[in-house]
């Protein structure tokens, strides 16, 4: 039974690990999984799984929760030993989030990140589409939202506030 566990199996189990703040995204949507390593003993039995992840933001508190979730899911599937390694370099960027993740965010009501935009101009604002009504007549309220990864916007057309996953 142990011999049939491979990387794909681990991946499908781990796709249930979601971002606690944005539960529509799993860790593959976030693009934080760098590597999955399976270690076998001399009798070819799986004895350890190593998951390498890269943190999104320096102080992201969700990373600890996600690590715990990863560990618990794998232990629940009888993996004898689980190790989670953090790889700081290369640094995570929103560019690692697949297109499918962008669609999930939009449906959830969060404006997805734009792909690589140089944003150091003071008082400059990207044109962000309202995820609720699609209007481009939106306004930045604050670069800092409820979580480190999100900015606050409001739509001048439908008047609803919404969050934008910042480009990073």
């Amino acid at each position, binding site marked *: 039974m142990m011999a049939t566990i491979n990387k794909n199996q681990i991946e499908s189990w781990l796709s249930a690990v979601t971002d606690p703040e944005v539960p529509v995204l799993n860790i593959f949507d976030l693009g934080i999984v760098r590597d999955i390593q399976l270690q076998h003993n001399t009798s070819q039995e799986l004895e350890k799984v190593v998951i390498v992840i890269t943190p999104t*933001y320096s*102080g992201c508190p969700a990373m600890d929760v996600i690590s715990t979730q990863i560990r618990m899911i794998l232990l629940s599937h009888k993996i004898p030993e689980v190790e989670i390694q953090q790889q700081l370099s290369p640094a995570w960027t929103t560019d690692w989030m697949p297109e499918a993740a962008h669609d999930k965010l939009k449906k959830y009501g969060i404006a997805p990140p734009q792909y690589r935009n140089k944003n150091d101009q003071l008082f400059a604002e990207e044109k962000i589409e309202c995820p609720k009504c699609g209007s481009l007549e939106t306004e930045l309220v*604050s670069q800092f939202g409820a979580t480190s990864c999100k900015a606050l916007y409001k739509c001048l057309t439908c008047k609803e506030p919404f969050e934008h996953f910042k480009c*990073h």
Partner: protein
Amino acid sequence: MNSKATDLLFCTLEIADNALIMGHRLSEWCGHGPILEQDIALTNIALDHLGQARPLYQKAAELVNQMSKEEKEAAFKSPMLSRLFEKSKHITEDDLAFLRDSWDFRNVLLVEQDNGDWAQTVVRSFLFDTYNKLFFAQLIHTSEPTWRGVAEKALKEVTYHSRWSSEWMIRLGDGTEESHERIQNAFQNLWPYSGELLMASPSQKIHSDIYPSVDAKAYRQEINRILETATLTLSEEDSWMQAGGKIGNHSEHLGYILAEMQYMQRAYPEMEW
């Protein structure tokens, strides 16, 4: 004379302590911000700083645990840490953050200055963020792997921090008469603390190949660019600069900061969440 390992440890602590103390100061605004969105902005920025500090303290703890007992005792003079060294215990990131006394901290004096009014907080951040932007832009090229990893992330975050503080300098400077006066005063008060950022500590000089220094001219150019748009003036560019933080000589402020920050760990030793 320190061992090279001790100097590497001290360099790591310089960067980590700046992040921790600045993060702590900004977190003191939580619940007291002038408007909700700015309260949130500051706590977000504080969290970024704390997140930068953590892997650096982990690296520092690793370095300490590899040192000899003599090196450890020469590096730190904090009784609570000495106790752990006597028992030959391995120390962690938490021990470094919560059991060191002020003389073992290596942050610059700027970050321990009090929050004051909104203008003072903005200026303190502006002076620090401008330095960080230039510092991390170089640190991403260092051969020290932990510093490089932290810098890659920190550079992106610091770009947002710098935008925040620069925009507020302009809003307040080129604002009302009162906002202009307050920010001008805050700037005059804090400018003498900016020089220390650019002064290399003895440990930094030993590791100058991996620990970059920020050029004073480049720093002043960035500062002046924003001051101009903010209609602010710098009366004495070459004023006397306060220093001492990097070698453990701190202002009275740090004592109060640590008394609050370290209270739980010292009152309930080895407590866990």
